[in-house]
């Protein structure tokens, strides 16, 4: 088991007395290599769940264990390091650094931690996503699909234990979205990475081995 969530709660204070409960008593277990889709309407808590899994936010209560380590017990510094080594994140809006080339964007997470072979590995990742010839291009020179593929390359270059994808095809047209999702699932299959995917796209969700519906902060 790579991911275990037990009794996870997340609420946000509204005023002095009120709070909004976004996630309520969530429980989830994900095995290594599994692909899980989380679907739900807007406001159901999908993004909040992703931010907790990515270690970018802290739960109000409950347990979140990734690779047998309790994330909530980690300090900020340890959590950052843990995320950099184990979690790859793919955002809906790509979020590439506009002033860096494709190669530099992909090698960034490795360079930040002093990996001597960062450029080599980045080239390999770009090759895996089919963009080895665009390594010197800047984000504004790439199409939406190409930008998302660079973002995928950046996420997998660290060889993460788990990939978190937030609507990876949300900003793409249908055809491009299919291409990107094919690439994503091929990579996951090849590398044996675990994938947790948040999406509105039913077809994309059905490609995963498991689908979970998040409604009013709980899994249905």
């Amino acid at each position, binding site marked *: 088991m790579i991911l275990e969530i037990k009794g996870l709660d997340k609420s946000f204070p509204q005023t002095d007395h009120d709070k909004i409960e976004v996630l309520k008593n969530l429980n989830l277990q994900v095995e290594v290599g599994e692909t899980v889709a989380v679907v739900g309407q807007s406001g159901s808590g999908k*993004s*909040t769940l*992703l*931010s907790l899994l*990515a270690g*970018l*936010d802290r739960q109000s209560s409950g347990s979140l264990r990734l690779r047998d380590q309790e994330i909530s017990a980690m300090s*900020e*510094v340890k959590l*950052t*390091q843990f*995320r*950099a*080594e184990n979690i790859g*994140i793919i*955002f*809906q*809006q790509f*979020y*590439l*650094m*506009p*002033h*860096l080339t494709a190669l530099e964007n992909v090698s*960034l*997470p490795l*360079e*930040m*931690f*002093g*990996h001597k072979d960062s450029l080599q590995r980045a080239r390999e990742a770009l090759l895996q996503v089919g963009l080895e010839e665009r390594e010197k291009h800047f984000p504004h020179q790439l199409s939406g699909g190409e930008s998302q593929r660079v973002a995928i390359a*950046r996420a997998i270059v660290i060889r993460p234990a788990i990939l978190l994808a*937030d609507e990876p095809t949300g900003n793409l047209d249908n055809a491009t979205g299919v291409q990107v999702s094919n690439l994503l699932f091929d990579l996951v299959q090849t590398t044996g990475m675990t994938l947790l995917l948040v999406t509105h796209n039913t077809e994309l969700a059905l490609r995963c081995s498991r689908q979970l519906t998040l409604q009013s902060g709980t899994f249905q």
Partner: protein
Amino acid sequence: MKNPPAFFWLKLAFRELLNNRRFSLFFIFNLALGLAGFIALDSFKESLDNHLGQNSKAILGADIALTSYLPFEDKTLDALEAKFPQNTLSTRKTTLFTMVASEDQSRLVQITGIEKEFPFYGKMVLKKNGVVESENVEQSLALSGEAWVYPELLFMLGLKLGGSVKIGEKNFTIADTVLDDPSSSFSSFGLAPRVYLAYSQMQETALLSKKSRVSYQRLYRLPDGTDLSGLVVKLQNQINSFDGSDSKIRILTHKRAGNNLGRLLGYLNDYLGLVAMIAVFLAGIGAAYLFRNYLVHRFREISILMSLGATRQQTYRMVLWQLGLLGTGAALIAIFISLVILPLLPLLLKQFLPNGFETQLSLGSLLFALVLGGVGSLVFCLPVLSRIRTVQPLQLFHKNVGQQDVTPALWRQALSYLPLLILSWSLSVWQSHSLIVGSAFVGMLLASILFLGSIAWLVLFLAGKLSQTSGSTMKRLAFRNLQRNRAGAISCFLALALGTLLINLIPQIYQGLQEEVSRPDDFRIPSLFLFDIQPEQMEPLLKTLSVEKVNLNYLSPMVRARLEKVNGKSFDFNSEEVSLTREEERQQNFRRHNLNLSYRTQLSDSEQIVEGRLLATNFDLDSGKPAEISLEVRYAERMGFKLGDLLTFNVQEVLVEAIVINLRRVQWNSFQPNFFILFQPGVLEDAPGTFVGSIGGLDASRRMNVQNRIVSDYPNVSVIDVTRMVGRVLKISDQMVLALRLMAYLSILAGLVVVFSIARHEVEGRLWELNLLKVLGARFSDIQKMIQIEFAVLGIFAGLFGVAVSLIMSYGISWWFFENLWKWTWQTSLGSIIGVTALSVGVAWLATQRTLRSSPLTLLRSS
């Protein structure tokens, strides 16, 4: 986990700046303009200090000098000269002010008697005979009884070379004019050109009486390697062991001589630096605004980095590197701009500068520029930097990161301004060499910024209200935009208002002074000022003047003395004490100089008692009580004297005790003879002294006739043409004010660049909605009008309140320093308000033209 490679964050920082070229260039140029003036002044100051330091021996003409206001006694000299090392050379010099006359003109001059070895260092250059050698002094001055004069004296007396001039009781032939004199001083304001005579000829002028103010000097050239400080200590100890007037012999080293020469310019430099600091401030405001907007739009990239594994500290580091790079870039550009400004300063301040002075950009100034650029950019942007703390990478999942403006806690914001306050205060105090002036400057600046900032907020609030009323659409949109974009609007407002304050403040202060001293019809201001009138000359002089149909007014006795003790403790000064502040410097100077005492039965109309009672009209010698004295209130403050203090004076070797009975305020702009220390009658009447007085109500030709008559009949009496002196002082003040204005205009330019940057940025930030307006039917002229209204509102109110604050400040400064010589010039105020408004609208127009003309098609493309 390993650390990133060396300079990883620096490289990333640089790449990001390169990608935001326009911001980077604006920031750099903005800050550079503000720094340039400050750096130019620092270089100028350092150049002057270096010049004076390197030429101090030439300025003094020796390594060290002993000065006395009485001739040196042989045994005194023997005792002192025994302290000098062997092979020390010495020469004599005497200086006094007196009148000289040609057939129909007379002038106040500084007579300097020299011997053949003078000067030991530096070279005097004469027009006819070139560099002065010993034999010139001997042959021309000593043996032939000739004189060398400054060239302007020939013009003043209507003489040529070879002409004759009467000095005291003797006539001298003008043999040559002095082209270059390393020891030339500015202190006489060019009113008393120098005349060189042989030391041996001075006696024949009959001017060296005990009552005249003569300075006797012994100059020494020391062997190489002599410990000067050690020698000074030995000499001072010897002097302290003397009694009487010998104990007041002063030691003057070449270092102090150099410092003395640069003192007036030092004061001017201080105030120029403070004005330049305002430019730094304005530039800082603009830079902080630009950086704020830059940073807010970088939150996304910072979030991405944190999501990829960067710690918050690492992102801080990257941003700090960016500020460092920007600051360094600004410093380099500022250095380049200062190279343009630097040559202008000597041109403006020619009158005040020693011969041979050249400006140089020193390594010290370069380093200072780099440090100031780096530290300055960090300190100004620190309040903005603190926002990084609240960046949350989880915002990436909420899709609107970078557009959210997260505001940190109020206390954190307030704390982030503290380094800026400390830096400003430190720079002000360092620049002005005065804790009081530096602190007052920062206090006033802070108060102005807070006040003007509050006014800006109020204006924007009212604009918001007005946007809800009826009126044209563009007008309402303009008011709405002002309210929405508070940060930009307030920054613009402050830049314009501070610039207006500055351009008004200096002329407003100066106008009052100028009008007061240059009133032609005001008979309060005398035409001539007479001094060194001997007691036995009083009656005949009054008779002479009555023949000329003029009155001698405000006749006052003057007795020279030195202060020996205060409340029983010796009033010593250490001539080599290094003063840290201007106040300490002034205090030292007061301590060093002889005092001029006077006595009077009643106060003059320019005096008013502020504390204490009137002096008793007569002194009872048998009572055993000390004499009563009155002190001028500011003199007393400076010297630390108060009511009831017992002061002991050495009046021509007679010790006189006196108690402070009152403190009085003197209206110095009355130009009447006035004294810091007044005795009651009955104490000093028998002391050797002279008289001073003034003559009023004379036009130019009568002034000259009366002056010539006095000089002819009473050659020892010195006469100052007050009208000419005032004119000269005003001319010199004009130059100083011009220099101050140059700095002020630089500050305003920095302010206008801020307005340009902000206007451009604001419009670019609103491009989407401006293009939407165009798509909905607004014409280019409508949109332009909207922008103009925004900046016209800012300009009018900034101008109005900038002028208002400048009037308040100028009134306060005039009241405090210049005894309320204040006059409002409404033309300047109105001109400033109109000018600033026009500039605000004009600069905004210039900044936004290109952006406003862009096609609304970009609106569709961006989606």
